């Protein structure tokens, strides 16, 4: 397999520098944007994710290389000759990310792995580093597999995936309100991604984009940020804890308990149905929350 460097490794010094810049801005603008315990939790969760990635990375690469032998097309990796393939790969990888990310919010099995990223009630650059520990176990990597079957070299796909991850770092901030209109129309931005991290009923299950917000506009999951409804961050049932192990595994524990106690015919549903689903209707899914919210808000307020 061709070898390319991991771009994320090279971006880490920039991540740290930007974090410090954002902290200085927060010091002047709003000190409550950061909390030492929350930041420590986020960064330790990021470190844990790095360890998990190092442990299972070889298996994912191995699977990619194995699938690549069944490819439909032969695509080279040299940028000079295959520049269009690089652009196409980045674009398709972002579409695969959209599919993964939407599933990660709509299927509890994938959500159990992804929830860690949403478990902070803050929204700052340290939140971006709150990454999954259990991505391999949840099989989240399968969404990228079609790219290898098409014929994009694994090294190219993983490099594009790294660039995608780097892009997503800077949008985790409240320091930037809006980007220029054309940029907001095409690209994922801090404003769009704030909505994605929101627990306000209006903002639930929206803006799954990685780099290009066009996927949300295309697949009807786009919701704009409203000045009249400031975003509240986190998860519907806030953790109320800075315990990093609990942040990493609490939803898996929830699934295990639910599957254990559920009647036989409902056991699988607690894994593949949407978060909040219950066989007796005793909990609320995001759709139910939105419905309840829509029923109680003043009728003159325009629907989005």
């Amino acid at each position: 397999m061709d070898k390319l460097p991991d771009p994320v490794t090279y971006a880490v010094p920039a991540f740290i520098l930007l974090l410090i810049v954002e902290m200085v801005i927060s010091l002047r603008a709003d000190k409550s944007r950061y909390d030492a315990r929350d930041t420590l939790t986020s960064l330790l969760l990021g470190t844990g994710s790095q360890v998990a990635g190092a442990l299972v990375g070889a298996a994912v690469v191995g699977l990619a290389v194995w699938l690549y032998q069944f490819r439909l097309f032969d695509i080279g990796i040299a940028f000079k000759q295959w520049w269009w393939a690089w652009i196409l790969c980045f674009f398709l990888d972002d579409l695969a990310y959209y599919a993964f990310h939407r599933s990660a919010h709509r299927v509890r099995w994938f959500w159990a792995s992804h929830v860690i990223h949403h478990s902070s009630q803050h929204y700052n650059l340290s939140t971006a580093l709150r990454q999954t520990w259990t991505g391999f176990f949840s099989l989240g990597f399968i969404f990228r597999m079609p790219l290898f079957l098409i014929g994009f070299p694994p090294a190219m796909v993983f490099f594009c995936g790294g660039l995608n991850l780097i892009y997503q770092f800077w949008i985790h901030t409240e320091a930037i309100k809006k980007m220029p209109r054309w940029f907001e129309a095409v690209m994922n931005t801090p404003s769009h991604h704030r909505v994605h991290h929101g627990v306000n009923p209006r903002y639930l299950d929206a803006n799954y984009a990685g780099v290009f917000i066009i996927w949300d506009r295309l697949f009807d999951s786009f919701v704009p940020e409203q000045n009249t409804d400031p975003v509240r961050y986190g998860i519907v049932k806030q953790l109320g804890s800075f315990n990093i192990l609990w942040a990493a595994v609490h939803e898996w524990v929830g699934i295990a308990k639910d599957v254990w106690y559920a009647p036989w015919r409902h056991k699988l549903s607690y894994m593949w149905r949407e978060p909040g689903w219950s066989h007796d209707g005793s909990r609320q899914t995001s759709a139910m929350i939105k419905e309840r919210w829509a029923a109680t808000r003043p009728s003159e307020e325009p629907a989005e």
Partner: protein
Amino acid sequence: MSQTDLIQLGASLAAVLFIAWLVRTIGLGADPRIQDAEHAIRLAEEAETGFRGIEVARDRAGFAAIVRNAEGRMMLVRAHGNHFAARPVDEKVVGRLDKDFLTLTMPERTFGAVTLQLGKDAGVWASRMRDLNCG
């Protein structure tokens, strides 16, 4: 894990500790308090869409509050970092009354126990909690 992975891990841990130290040292953070009954009700309603609070027992220092709705359901709201977190108060929650103080121990260990200084109202709310267990 390779030697490079271990070096990266060591560097990451050093950076993590430095940044967390910096956040604390430069004075970032807040001291969130529940200002009044209206604030407590808003927090409870935000925590559970459709919940409508009508009565509040607020801790004297504003660290926590219990909010009750018209059907008698209760919600505990407490400070968490710079924000707040809430949980329903149901029959699984253990309440302990000690003069003016009411301590609620949640079944979720990581959420922990919360002690509210409620003055003479503490007995009233402890009694409501007992009713949950009897009902």
